[in-house]
């Protein structure tokens, strides 16, 4: 999770630009940018102002943010797997993401789509399966899953704190479609 949001410029009118943020459209000021942006450029937006241009290379080396490092690693693995199976085009990728990781699925999706262009996965759709936090209680012996939270203090069945968390920290590619 990081504070400024990377956004793609889709149109420019003098000192304002229309940007796309996770599919939502928003008008921002571009007066603070050091250079004139072009349509298709990525910028970091904070409080209604585009504050920094994001160079494509920086984005690709995963320097911009947490989720883009992770998207970059996903694409590396995907391309490796694709070559290994003698394929050239990746159609779909499924990622399992634990609820207790610090990764935001929307940001990951955004970074993946922004970075996939020069790769074999340029037309691939990424699906993110969220894995809820879950585990096993040693007191009552039951399994549990707790949706929508990152942590628990007590077994949801019996209230004991003698539980073990066994799920919710996953960050893995589970399957791919390619040809």
């Amino acid at each position, binding site marked *: *999770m*990081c504070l400024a949001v990377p956004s793609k410029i889709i149109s420019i009118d003098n000192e304002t630009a229309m940007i796309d943020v996770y599919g939502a459209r928003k008008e921002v000021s571009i007066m603070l940018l050091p250079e004139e942006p072009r349509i298709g450029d990525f910028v970091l937006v904070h409080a209604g102002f585009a504050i*920094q241009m994001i160079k494509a290379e*920086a984005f690709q080396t*995963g*320097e*911009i*943010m*947490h989720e883009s*490092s*992770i998207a970059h*690693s*996903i694409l*590396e*693995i995907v391309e490796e*797997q694709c070559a290994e*199976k003698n*394929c050239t085009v990746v159609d779909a990728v499924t*990622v399992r993401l634990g609820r*207790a*990781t*610090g*990764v935001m699925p929307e940001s990951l999706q955004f970074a993946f789509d922004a970075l996939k262009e020069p790769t074999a996965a340029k037309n691939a759709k990424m699906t993110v399966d969220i894995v809820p936090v879950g585990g096993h209680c040693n007191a009552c012996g039951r399994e549990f899953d707790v949706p929508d939270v*990152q*942590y628990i*203090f007590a077994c949801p069945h019996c209230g004991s704190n003698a539980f073990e968390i066994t799920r919710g920290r996953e*960050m*893995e*590619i*589970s*399957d*791919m*479609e*390619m*040809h």
Partner: protein
Amino acid sequence: MKVKVVSRILEANDRIAEENRRRFKKAGVFVANLMGAPGAGKTTLLEQTIRMLTPGVRIGVIEGDIVGSDDAERIGALGVPVVQINTGGACHLDANMISEVLDELPLDELEMVIIENVGNLVCPAEFKVGEDVKMMVLSVAEGHDKPLKYPLMFQESSALVLNKVDLLPYTNADLGKMKQDSLALNPKLTVFEVSCRTGAGIEAWAQWLSGLRSQ
């Protein structure tokens, strides 16, 4: 063609972290990864720790910041070897960044390396860099709601240093709740209450850290 892959996404990072760890081990160096939000007092704690432990313990420092070398200059002024990494926008240090600067530290002459991560309460917790131990600083002025809002770092750390306890009378922070929630998230956490400004609690913390080397 549909294929099952099951490949851990951060495997490449973890592999480099493991290589870093092997290099540190070979040189006999204990490594701590110091994390926390901007302004929590990471660099000041580091300065106080170095003052307390050197020259008895030979310490080296890797400083991670988005830009600038202010922190490295502060640490360098204490006479210990220091390397500055500028991440140029990235919100955390990763194993590869550490690997690239290892040659700049005289590892064979050191007993402990402290890596000060980029100021951030979220992202650094996700990336191993080759450390023996992760530890974090939280200042009481940040508020007692932080453990439950940013649980991952508390769960990943071995030690929590609650800094700026001298400011408690001027805040609404509930130190008891801060500790209670942190320990509920991670019962193995060792908690220290310190004030880097007054020096309170620094000795106990520094001795604990120094003692980890022989474990």
